[in-house]
């Protein structure tokens, strides 16, 4: 059996295969639920209800989608230039760390801190990715390895800070930082609804990245460098500069995920701030075929699966691990669906 590229994507493949992938996910999730002793036919309803069945559920999904939009955009931007940024997790934590530092250590007070924290976070995330990319363009060090390893370094570093200088004295011994003042938090978009401005910022970022990619000279340069660096260099495109700019952009976007989680939702920094948003961002970007607006859709979809299965597992009294397994299944099916949209299987 071999894979062969299809000459042109048909509508049936483009729409049918993702639908099949969703159906497959539902079947597997139901089987898992059945193994755990729940009624498989009830579970689908519970997933949908949990993800979008009520105003609360829907807002919960959008809240969960917010960091994924940022990390998804970060990955989409970098991958376009064939810059393999696997370190969105580290950049996210760098953003979160600087948000907390500015918010709690500089003696700022009131809403004026909100934009300052945001800018600080972006700079931190950008610098976080700049280091591996400088190593790449100067010394040829593989960024897949360095950005991946930075995730662990960053997590251990945060752990050290939370056990030491940043530890909340009122935190009953938990490794967590002091919380931001209430008036330093990102406000809710609509008063009374649990959805903060981080989500709106994510949408704006997606549109801006889309404009950057399709309308600006930098976007053109990024694509050219990603598709054929030799031809790009010959045509006078400064490859190193383009890669460094891409790194700043990608790192900054990932850091906004940390900023929006701290300033919009959690208020403080803990070691479980991100349940792998940085890594899931890779999947989000791939599902969106690296298209910035597609990232928004796929981030909401992935968040929906998270939130829906989570809620289902509680309602049907099955272990919450089923949520993780269902999501993993969804991602595998989706990746397969994307593959089969562009390739067909040939015998022989």
């Amino acid at each position, binding site marked *: 059996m071999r894979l062969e590229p299809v000459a042109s994507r048909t509508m049936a493949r483009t729409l049918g295969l993702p639908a099949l992938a969703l159906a497959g996910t539902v079947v597997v999730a139901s089987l898992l639920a059945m193994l755990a002793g729940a009624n498989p036919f009830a579970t689908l309803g519970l997933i949908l209800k949990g993800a979008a069945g009520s105003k609360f559920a829907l807002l919960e999904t959008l809240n969960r989608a917010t960091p994924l939009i940022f990390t998804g955009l970060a990955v989409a931007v970098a991958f376009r230039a064939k810059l393999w940024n696997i370190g969105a997790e580290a950049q996210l934590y760098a953003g979160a760390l600087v948000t907390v530092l500015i918010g709690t250590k500089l003696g700022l007070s009131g809403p004026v801190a909100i934009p300052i924290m945001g800018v600080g976070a972006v700079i931190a995330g950008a610098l976080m990715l700049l280091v591996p990319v400088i190593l790449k363009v100067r010394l040829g060090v593989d960024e897949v390895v360095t950005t991946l390893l930075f995730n662990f370094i960053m997590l251990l570093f945060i752990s050290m800070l939370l056990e030491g200088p940043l530890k909340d004295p009122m935190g009953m011994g938990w490794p967590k930082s002091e919380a931001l003042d209430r008036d330093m938090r990102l406000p809710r978009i609509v008063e009374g609804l649990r959805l903060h401005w981080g989500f709106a910022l994510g949408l704006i970022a997606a549109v801006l990245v889309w404009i950057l990619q399709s309308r600006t000279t930098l976007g*053109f340069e990024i694509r050219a460098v990603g598709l*054929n660096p030799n031809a790009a260099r*010959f045509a006078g495109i400064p490859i190193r500069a383009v890669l460094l700019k891409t790194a700043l952009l990608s790192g900054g976007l990932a850091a906004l995920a940390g900023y929006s989680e701290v300033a919009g939702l959690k208020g403080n920094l803990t070691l479980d701030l991100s349940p792998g948003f940085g890594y899931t961002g890779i999947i989000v970007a791939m599902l969106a075929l690296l298209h910035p607006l597609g990232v928004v859709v796929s981030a909401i979809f992935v968040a929906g699966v998270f939130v829906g299965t989570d809620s289902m597992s509680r309602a049907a009294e099955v272990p919450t691990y089923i949520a993780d397994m269902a999501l993993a299944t969804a991602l595998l099916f989706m990746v397969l669906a994307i593959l089969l949209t562009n390739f067909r299987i040939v015998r022989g």
Partner: protein
Amino acid sequence: MPSLAPPGVALKLTGITKRFGRLTANDSISFALHEGEVLALLGENGAGKTTLMNILFGHYTADEGKVEVYGEDLPPGAPGAALKAGVGMVHQHFTLAENMTVLENVLLGTVPLWRPTLDRTAGRARLERLSREFGLAVHLDAKIKALSVGERQRVEILKALYRDARILILDEPTAVLTPQEAQALFETLKTAVGKGLSVIFISHKLHEVMAISKRVVVLRHGKLVGEVATTDTNERQLAEMMVGAEVALPKAPAAAPGEAYLELRDVSLPPEGRRVGLSGVTLELRSRQITGIAGVSGNGQAMLADLVGGLAVPASGEIRLYGKPVTAWSPRAALDAGVGRIPEDRHAVGSIADLSLTENAVLESYKTAPQSRSGLMDWAEARRRAEAIIARYDVRCPGPETRIRLLSGGNMQKLILGRVMEAGPRIILANQPVRGLDIGALTYVQERLIEARGEGAAILLISEDLDEILALSDVVHVMSEGRLSPGFARGTKTQGELGALMAGQGFDDAA
């Protein structure tokens, strides 16, 4: 001896039609290949030769028509079927694994994946026999990367023969060969045909077609426009069939050169990987003059081109532009200084395959108005520029939004030429500008270069084809092992004298 029975038909194409959008790449093409003959398939770039072969090999599915091999229908769209039926193809760009040996490359893909070991002994014996029978001498344990282009081609042919090919298709087989290697290939083909093989020889080099083929099939714009016995035709008639009008190679009239636009003074560069460096190269490119660099490829021409194109910076010595020494040198600096560059490799360096014609057309000029203003692209303007190039330089394509990957080599080259010329260059680097092009595109490119010279440009022409150098150049330099001979004015050296220099003889006292 008159043949008692007509030779059998090895391969038969009937009414093959293939459309890509508005473009009909193959329009109802029918012909037959007889057993034991060499059939030449002749046509310009974009005439539909490659599409036809892709259909035969199941890479594309024809919209209409069918393929028969030895009387059996070939199922459409099944790449394995042609191989199994005994059709072997030697591509223009070889498909060999560089870091494996000749033997491994031939065995690759002939052994099922689940077999844990490789039976090298039986394979070796068979391959040695084939190599002897067909006069294809090649060392079976040599790594591919150590082989010359001619040897690699022999491996490709052996690969096909090893898989019991009875029909051999060669796509532009001589484009990459030296004349001696081409001669050896012809001998091999004659042996093969003598043993009952049938050969389709795809080419646009007329004298080769005349020398090797028994019959000729000519394609133009996707249609079959002629089928003649080689003995009943001549080069001129074939050329006319190919391009549809009488053609003549351009002759460049002598010109009065102007001032020196670009000078290299005693420039040296260390070798880089397998590329020969430069030692003490001195060169002057004058306005209204074509300076030709003759030489066997791989003698430093690539480095010289990089130097003029902005990709390389001299390790010692100096570049002077318009009389002033150059301080910062890069592709961008070269472009800004009015150097237009036609690179040697139009696929990997001159264009980006997955970008559209529009995007490729502005690849060097996207940063300037009107293509972009303060960092924002004006794609409508870029598209207009691409459309202008397509119209002015006769680029045949479905439209400006087509990915350039889908264009034939000649049309790709015309787009690159257009991109260079539209920028109004004062200095033009033309590195192998017509390699692999058919007569129509070749003449076209050469005429544009001569025209640019008339408008005052200083042109550096690098080519392995001595005839081309002699036809176009006002001044000829010879390159050998990284050294550059002094310039010889048109007609002051014979072909033989230049040939001796190309071989590196008498270099030190050539001045």
